[in-house]
């Protein structure tokens, strides 16, 4: 998958308040589907649907432990999203390097 598409998936998956709350809860540690559903006024299947969206975006992994399924946060997509935002910092730092060189040379040649 190209990174742009996976970033869209990350941002898309995080566009829902219930899913954001699930992600926030998982930052505190792994949890079962039942534990994740607890604070919400929604059914287990509804939570499961949200988990599927998060899973498809690569944000959450579900594993089976005996009879219960545990959910775990995968932090890589969010790191990618932040890295992508940060890459624009690099872009502008580079442009300012270039502008600084230009202004220094222009001053020397008095041609600005």
């Amino acid at each position, binding site marked *: 998958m190209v*990174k742009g598409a996976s970033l869209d998936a990350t941002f898309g998956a995080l566009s829902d308040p219930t899913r*954001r709350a699930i992600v926030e809860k998982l930052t505190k540690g792994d949890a079962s589907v039942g534990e994740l559903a607890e604070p919400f006024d929604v059914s287990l299947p509804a939570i499961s649907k949200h988990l599927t969206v998060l899973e498809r975006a690569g944000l959450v992994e579900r594993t089976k432990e005996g009879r219960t399924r545990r959910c775990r946060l995968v932090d890589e997509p969010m790191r990618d999203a932040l890295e992508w*935002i*940060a890459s*624009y*910092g690099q872009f502008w730092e580079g442009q300012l390097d270039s*502008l600084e060189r230009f202004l220094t040379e222009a001053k020397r040649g008095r041609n*600005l």
Partner: protein
Amino acid sequence: MNAPERPWEESVDAGSATAAAVHVTRELPARRDDVFRAWTQPDLFARWFTPPGNSSVSAELDVRPGGSYRITLQRTELVTGTSYIVGEYLEVAPPERLVFTFGWEEPPPLAGIEALEALDSRVTVQFRDRGPSTEISITHERLDTEELRGFHRWGWETTLEQLAEVA
């Protein structure tokens, strides 16, 4: 040139509800009028606005509120070809402030950058008079998607801090 090695790491601001943004600041060795002209006069602008991996640049800049701009870049690295940075001036206040939208057409084939094609990220350039020099600060915001923009009071930063503790 004395900027810290990776200053953007501290200046990523994904915490606000409306915008994921980056900020950069620099003191430049020229008077404010000259620095402002380097941003607004097309022939001067094309002489320095060269992102790495591009051989030549030309610029059409209609610098007035509502005016549009188009920067043409010739790529020399990875896949050669032409890319365009395009947008519209939202605010023009010589010699203090420029605000414009920022987007790509035919973006360079770099990971992630295509995601910017579809959105109207926004750049604010502030020029501060420091006598013989000028302090310039650039904020590039709305570096996110429509969906993310709908966020209200969601603590990206808090969550990421927690993530850092987990990882």
